[in-house]
């Protein structure tokens, strides 16, 4: 008999806030990575030269974008997913009165928060990169801003959040499986090799492969469905695997 009855959701929320409080450094790391990308990877220069009319003409195109910030944010997302499966993280959660379900739910809430922050900051960093471009002579702005095209702006945040969440769940699932059995490391090596060969090795398969399954989707509704379904499958696998792991047995 307890004086206070907590619902599963209430417990998960409390655990999520504790997790959020304990893992502030993870978000600081995101900021550091994004600043590194902004300062050191500002753009790429392409030069084209012609002399069709007797005198040389040279173009120097500097392309500035938030590709680097996006890449490092997705990289961070994968690592964060992986980190949350560490034995230390798992054991820490069971210091509180809790169960496997609330543990998983709290992790999921944490991923959603991290994806929200990753998505918003990456898109907002685009504005910073745009300011850098606008200070140069002869600039061409090819991406509409928030005021010119608010829906496009929001769709960028949504897409970034979706990919960040997906990468986190992939890292989380891989981490869970590896925690379960180290044999999965070898298996993933094989899967990774097969994936890269099927996706990048063939030159004319731009419109096929696993990446195109998400990136090639033109309907935002179908894209959302694909992401949600994948996340549900990944989450179910990690839930199944984590249930079989013993607490405080790294």
């Amino acid at each position, binding site marked *: 008999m307890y004086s206070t009855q907590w619902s599963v959701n209430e417990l998960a929320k409390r655990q999520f806030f504790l997790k959020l409080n304990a893992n502030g450094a993870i978000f600081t790391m995101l900021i550091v990575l994004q600043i590194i990308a902004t300062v050191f990877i500002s753009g790429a220069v392409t030069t084209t030269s*012609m002399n069709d009319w007797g005198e040389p*003409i040279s173009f*120097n*195109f500097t392309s500035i974008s938030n590709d680097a910030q996006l890449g490092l944010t997705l990289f961070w997302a994968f690592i964060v997913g992986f980190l949350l499966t560490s034995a230390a993280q798992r054991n820490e959660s069971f210091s509180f009165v809790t169960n496997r379900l609330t543990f998983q739910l709290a992790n999921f809430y944490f991923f959603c928060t991290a994806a929200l922050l990753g998505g918003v900051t990456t898109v907002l960093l685009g504005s910073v990169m745009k300011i850098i471009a606008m200070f140069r002579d*002869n600039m061409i702005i090819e991406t509409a801003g928030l005021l010119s095209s608010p829906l496009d702006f929001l769709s*960028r945040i949504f897409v970034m959040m979706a990919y960040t969440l997906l990468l986190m769940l992939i890292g989380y699932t891989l981490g869970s499986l590896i925690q379960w059995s180290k044999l999965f490391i070898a298996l993933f090596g094989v899967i990774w090799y097969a994936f890269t060969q099927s996706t990048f090795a063939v030159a004319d398969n731009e419109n096929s492969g696993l990446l195109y399954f998400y990136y090639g989707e033109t309907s935002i509704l179908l894209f959302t469905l694909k992401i949600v379904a994948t996340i549900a499958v990944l989450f179910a696998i990690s839930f199944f695997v984590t249930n079989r792991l013993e607490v405080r047995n790294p």
Partner: protein
Amino acid sequence: MFITILVPVVLLLGLLTIIMVTKNMGRVRIKKSFHWKLITGYLVLLLIGLVVAEAMEQRIEGVNPPEVGANEVGFDLYNAIVEELPIPKNLVLAKRSHEVEGKFTISSFPGAYILIKRTPEISGTIEETVYSPELMTMFNGEDSMYYDLSDQLKINLPVWNSNSMSVPKQPENRLEYTFYHDSNILNQFTGEKTHGNSSGSVSGVMTIHLLIPDTIELDIPDLDHEQNYYIDILE
């Protein structure tokens, strides 16, 4: 092979770095509130960046060069002159009249194309129209869209005196452009995917169209392909 090997190595190194940094952060006793203050400050800075970028964008709206489709690239200027068809105004660099005394001489010249049409008038006035070459850079390979940068070309116009015209050496053109575009991944649903700006093309050379009355005697250089100059006398 590059991706197959490099990506797992980078991921592993990243994982180790983040674990080490996270552990060290604990050791140097950074207050937990520090992280949240940092995140809040960072978000505020980014929001300020957004406001500034939006304000600047509104101010400079319309500075992008004109966009043209593939069907508008490579205008057939020769045919338009011969057939007396309309010519886009943006190709006209200069329209001038010159009074000539006696024999009219054109000295050898590089990098230009001269079209001469004799007119039955009895006068000493030559009508000159100078047309710019087209300079295009492709920015959307899928839809074959180009930016028209023709007006950015520096061109030295022909030099005239009382009885001759010469085409000066053309200046070297070094064009520098900075493109900003959001990552293609983010633009999955906006239709603003870019395929790079790696290709450009110059169509033709400076074309000088001269209307010379029959009464003016002409002294033009012999055609010499090696010197890269061309003169056509239109019938």
